[in-house]
């Protein structure tokens, strides 16, 4: 089955993905075989159900939000290109990549792209703002039934107050960056890919 998987992936595609995402050749072929084994419908694309079939992801309180990050607005399928593009956010930032920050196109694993990934987990309606209501909903996903509405409400209020600088009672992406400026995003939002 491995041989079939690799033969479906053409060299040109690998090259393009390499350029776009920064993954190495062997990482791409390995991740392709993973993509292929997740693809139960065998149609070259993953659906939300394909992701939900991973038990460890299904028990992740934010599992549904993370799955959602793979699907652009209105789509219910993601192909290998898109799959890799989302995964690339979690590539570690390498030293030589840090220096060429002034490039025309920013790499997917840059600090601000990593932050944007996290921001979008909160931004349920994709309007580039986190409202109190959205924050509450995400908090509820994380804590389940264990904390009262009242207590959760006060946590949300305080979080927004601290982050909000222009007084619109929402957290914009720039305010989000400001709050997290001391956090080691590069390391905390990275996965150690081998080889």
């Amino acid at each position, binding site marked *: 089955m491995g041989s079939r998987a690799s033969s479906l992936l053409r060299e040109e595609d690998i090259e393009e993905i390499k350029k776009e995402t920064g993954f190495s050749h062997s990482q791409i072929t390995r991740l392709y075989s993973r993509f292929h084994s997740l693809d139960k419908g065998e149609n070259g694309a993953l659906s939300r159900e394909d992701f939900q079939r991973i*038990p460890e*992801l299904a*028990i992740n*309180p934010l599992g549904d939000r993370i799955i959602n990050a793979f699907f652009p607005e209105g789509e219910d399928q993601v192909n290998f290109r898109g799959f890799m593009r989302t995964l690339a956010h979690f590539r570690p930032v390498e030293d030589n990549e840090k220096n060429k920050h002034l490039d025309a196109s920013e790499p997917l694993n840059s600090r601000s792209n990593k932050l944007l990934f996290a921001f979008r987990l909160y931004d349920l309606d994709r309007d580039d703002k986190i409202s109190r209501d959205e924050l509450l909903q995400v908090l509820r996903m994380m804590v*389940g039934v264990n904390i009262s509405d009242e207590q959760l409400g006060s946590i949300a209020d*305080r*979080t927004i107050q601290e982050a909000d600088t222009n007084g619109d009672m929402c957290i914009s992406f720039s305010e989000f960056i400001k709050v997290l400026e001391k956090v080691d995003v590069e390391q905390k*939002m990275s996965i150690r890919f081998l080889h």
Partner: protein
Amino acid sequence: MEDFWGVAISVLRMWFSLVVGLIMLPAMFGVSLGITESYMKVLIKTLKWATMRIQRGAQEQQEQQTLKASASNEIIQRDEGSMEQEIGELRRSQPKHQEGGDFALSDVFYFSRKGIETIVEDEVTQRFTSEELVSWNLLTRTNLNFYYISLRLTILWGVGVVVRYCILLPLRITLTCIGLTWLVIGTTLVGFLPNIRVKNWLSELVHVMCYRICARGLSAVIHYHNKENRPKRGGICVANHTSPIDIVILANDGCYAMVGQVHGGLMGVIQRAMVRSCPHIWFERAEMKDRHLVTQRLKDHVNDKTKLPILIFPEGTCINNTSVMMFKKGSFEIGGTIYPVAIKYDPQFGDAFWNSSKYNMVSYLLRMMTSWAIMCNVWYLPSMTQEDGEDAVQFANRVKSAIARQGGLVDLSWDGGLKRGKVKETLKEQQQKQYSSMVVGEDSSGSGDASD
């Protein structure tokens, strides 16, 4: 024309007398003529040579990198910190909140990293697909990095195909057919005998004989360790489950009472014949659902010390032999002595795992019979009994860990039923609860529960 038939018949006669003389008879009496051993030696040498060729080929293409990569099958390296540690670390750089609950916007980093990690590589789903090999074993089943390497290797592979399909396959099919026919005839005949001691003895003899013939039909090379711990009468033998062949492997070295559902077709014929000579426990489909009835019948069997040990695979599904998954507690509620057995196949010569969602029984057996061989190790572990104050679940876990340790398998607590079913909502609730206690602190989480 007559000449042709004459030749054909004499060839067939030759074939059968060779099969009977060199394989059947030794198999029936458990003697080894050393044919399999020398076959294995040749095989190991050939595979070694092939691996060397592959390595050299890779070096020529300056791809040592990919080959090294294939030495370990992992894609990522995970941090094994607990939720408390990791989120604590995340919050360190942010102002502390004392009252009203602790939450930081960066807490989602933990969940998103964990989530992406499981998408790239998870512990459960890959146990339900064939294990990836470190080097190519010249079978059709290949890993990602092995394709055309050299002419000589391709020729070797071609010779392998001819040998496996034109010589080994017919031989193995013949043997299996003889074995199964003998099982049906033998057990039926023994079934007519009155219930005396000779009957038990004969029945065991017939069973072991047939399984030995079937094992040769798979070219199984089995090493049994610690034979002094072999399951005894009136006990339950539990083993990790990789494929239906597990039964043939274990029954080669002793008789077991099988537990299972009544099947139709060929399986049904075999089952009906087997139960005539010795008390196997077959359930009708409807009976299986009645847990109480199942437990009662198993209890009755175990309490009768003259009856054969029951063989149970408590995982309830086939796992790819890299890990042991949750043991269903049912088998541990029966009582009696548990005899754990660890079975570990050597994947180099053939993949024993039955991926039942991908292959049906016949095509699985065909794959088995066209593999090089089935090589496996069986360890009998010291018997275990439930300790005071230990419930069935804890006992099941203890037995599972012992098997995992002995077989060199990964000890997982996940349910093998996830192969088909969905994960239980309670596991997610546990995660949420754990996180909640980080937000409001251990003691106040109790009051949060009460208010709901």
